[in-house]
């Protein structure tokens, strides 16, 4: 049991470190920080993208973009553990590549698995280099936890498909060049059987992107409306009506983000409790109740960190990490909400004051809203418990009343 690199790992780490040392994007980090202060959404987006694209292009030219992708498609043909090492070395600079996370993490692998050779050579390299940005359009108002309940229609018309419907919670749709889209092509088949996947140019006529205003008042996501949007059949990914299996490729990659540092609120709360004073003038962290709560939270956050280390170790051995990674968000999200509410309370009535500054108290205040979304996005707490119970512990799935029914005969209203 040790934290040492293997010789090969050490060699790659040295290489990565050397390159980063020679290309440190500190100026871009400053641009990023400045951009985040911009109030106007479009201007902010544009500024963020400028910094992001500059760093991504540099990484691509240096051979450090989408490391695990084949060289032919703009990658490095690197191993998963090399990817992890790169992330460790890139550290805070990784924040610059945020806008590409979904495109490279989810759309790329799907295109790689289902597009034609010609399409792969056309679309993957610019996706890797950040010259083209992609988004993923799966969720719908009617299909949340039940993703396959989606209703966006695709009807064949000659060599094209005509798309009508609405997607929701689409990250980055307002600045993306392309996107992958799952649609219903046969509503007479059972729910999972009538779906088909496409990719499309987000500038296509009939595509309308609207920001969603969140409970916090901010807008990080979009709704995307499709009105008679034409997609040529050649942009179909996988077979007609086989879209569900295609989407599993995409989603599997969503979950496969090893060692990703999940926000928990614990470091922020530690700093907060170390600075805020209680009514009697003592530091919060000297309060026995605060200590007991913090200790429990800290042990959970540490457990997540070390669980990720165990996964990295499996990668290092060339094994596929175990299921223990499915616990991350389920542990982090509700804990973050509890911590944020507790931090409010420790300040007494002043805890109610709205703030978005970068102080621990400011960050914790924002988490009060962030946690609501984190407990939902990418699988609700309840869905995550089901996944653990079924895929990890082998317990039976929920009874599925709609499994074999034709989709268009499944009720849409409870009463």
């Amino acid at each position: 049991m040790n934290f040492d690199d293997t010789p090969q790992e050490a060699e790659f780490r040295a290489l990565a470190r050397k390159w980063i040392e020679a290309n440190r994007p500190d100026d871009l980090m400053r641009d990023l920080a400045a951009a985040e202060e911009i109030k106007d959404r479009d201007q902010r987006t544009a500024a963020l993208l400028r910094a992001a694209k500059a760093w991504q292009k540099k990484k691509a030219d240096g051979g450090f973009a989408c490391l695990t992708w084949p060289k032919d498609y703009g990658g490095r043909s690197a191993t998963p553990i090399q990817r992890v090492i790169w992330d460790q070395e890139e550290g805070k600079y990784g924040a610059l590549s945020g806008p590409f996370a979904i495109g490279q993490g989810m759309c790329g692998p799907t295109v790689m698995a289902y597009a034609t050779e010609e399409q792969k050579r056309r679309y993957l390299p610019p996706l890797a280099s950040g010259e083209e940005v992609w988004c993923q359009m799966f969720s719908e108002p009617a299909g949340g936890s039940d993703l396959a309940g989606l209703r966006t229609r695709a009807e064949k018309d000659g060599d094209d498909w005509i798309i009508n419907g609405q997607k929701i919670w689409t990250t980055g749709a307002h600045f993306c060049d392309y996107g992958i889209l799952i649609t219903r092509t046969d509503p007479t088949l059972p729910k999972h059987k009538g779906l088909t996947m496409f990719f499309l140019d987000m500038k296509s006529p009939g595509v309308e992107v609207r920001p969603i205003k969140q409970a916090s008042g901010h807008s990080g996501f979009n709704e995307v409306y499709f009105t008679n949007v034409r997609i040529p059949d050649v942009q179909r990914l996988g077979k007609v009506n086989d879209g569900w299996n295609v989407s599993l490729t995409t989603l599997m990659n969503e979950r496969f983000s090893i060692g990703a540092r999940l926000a928990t609120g614990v470091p922020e709360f530690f700093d907060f409790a170390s600075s805020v004073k209680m009514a009697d003038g003592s530091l919060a962290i000297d309060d026995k109740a605060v200590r007991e709560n913090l200790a429990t939270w800290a042990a959970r956050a540490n457990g997540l960190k070390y669980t990720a280390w165990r996964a990295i170790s499996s990668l290092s051995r060339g094994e596929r990490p175990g299921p223990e990674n499915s616990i991350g968000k389920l542990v982090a999200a509700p804990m973050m909400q509890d911590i944020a509410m507790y931090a409010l309370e420790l300040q007494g009535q002043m805890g109610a004051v709205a703030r978005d500054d970068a102080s621990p108290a400011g960050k914790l205040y924002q988490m009060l809203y962030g946690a609501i979304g984190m407990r939902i996005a990418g699988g609700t707490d309840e869905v995550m418990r089901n996944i653990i119970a079924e895929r990890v512990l082998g317990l039976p799935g929920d009874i599925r009343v709609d499994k074999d029914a034709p989709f268009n005969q499944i009720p849409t209203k409870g009463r």
Partner: protein
Amino acid sequence: MNFDFSDEQKQLRDEARRFLSENCTPKHVRAILEGRGTYDRALWKGLADLGLIGVAIPEEFGGAGAGRLELCVVAEELGRALAPVPYSSTVYLAAELLMLAGTDAQKKAWLPKIAAGEAIGALALVEGVGDPTPRSIMTAAVNGKISGTKTLVADGGIADFAIVVAREGLFIVDLNGAGVTRENVETVDPTRNHARIVFDNAPGEALGAGADAWSLVDKVLDRAAVLVAFEQIGGADRALEMGRDYALDRIAFGRPIGSFQAVKHMLADMYVAATLARSNAYYGAWALSTDAGELAEAAANARVSATQAYQLCAKNNNQVHGGMGFTWEFDCHLYYRRSNLLALTLGSLTMWENRLIDEMRKRNAAA
């Protein structure tokens, strides 16, 4: 035993609910949330016209002369409807303090205006992070001139007068008068006005004969805790109903999400918390209405229970609504915001938990 509200009181509740269902819809609440006004003036006027602001103010001072129990049922409905008006500051705090300790002249001066909806009052207590204590108060009164900074005053931006807690006692200060500067402060729940107020030699009139200031603060906080608890159980019940209704309507995997045990049990836990909080609030109402010796313990008990119930119900209501609960468009966040605001007004849960234990010990020591 008749541990329940009377038919007349239930009738008053129904009237209040009917009025609010038309005059305090989510649309009205959102108008204030989104900054179109600092409070709902039409609603405030309407409440005055119905005699609901002065419901517990004696008739000689222009009120309806009803009791605290009537105030409790109104409070529950205001909480349920998220009423964006300065009711708690004006009625539970300012008016109660005037009735507790005000001179006859002071009552004559303010209570009729309050009942008529012509005067908004506030309690200026908080001076910084943490729950205030007698030692933590820095605001000073020098020959009737008040100086100091109150960092967060509920409805301080719209109030006509404040009762200011100073080292030397409680003072009534005209907020439109000299020596007062105030700026609105946004909180977790912008449907209720809050302000930071700086007093710089502002003229103040001592409240009443100048009884021990802090025991007055304790007294009024106990009374307000019961009344706010009713606002909290009103909100908790509404959040529970919203979650239940959505669980019945929303289909996933071909069936209402309310048919999944994960959702059923989340809602059952909300019902349990809301029921306990309601029963505890009723006991607080009895103690308040009879000014019983048990009031301090009953108030802390009601406060702790209602705070936990409302925060749980609002939080779980978001969760039952899934992604929709995370949108500005759905009303879930209105309750989430209010539940977190009310958890902090009158002081933190910790402060009230400690008051509850202190009172339990006193009672056991006495027994």
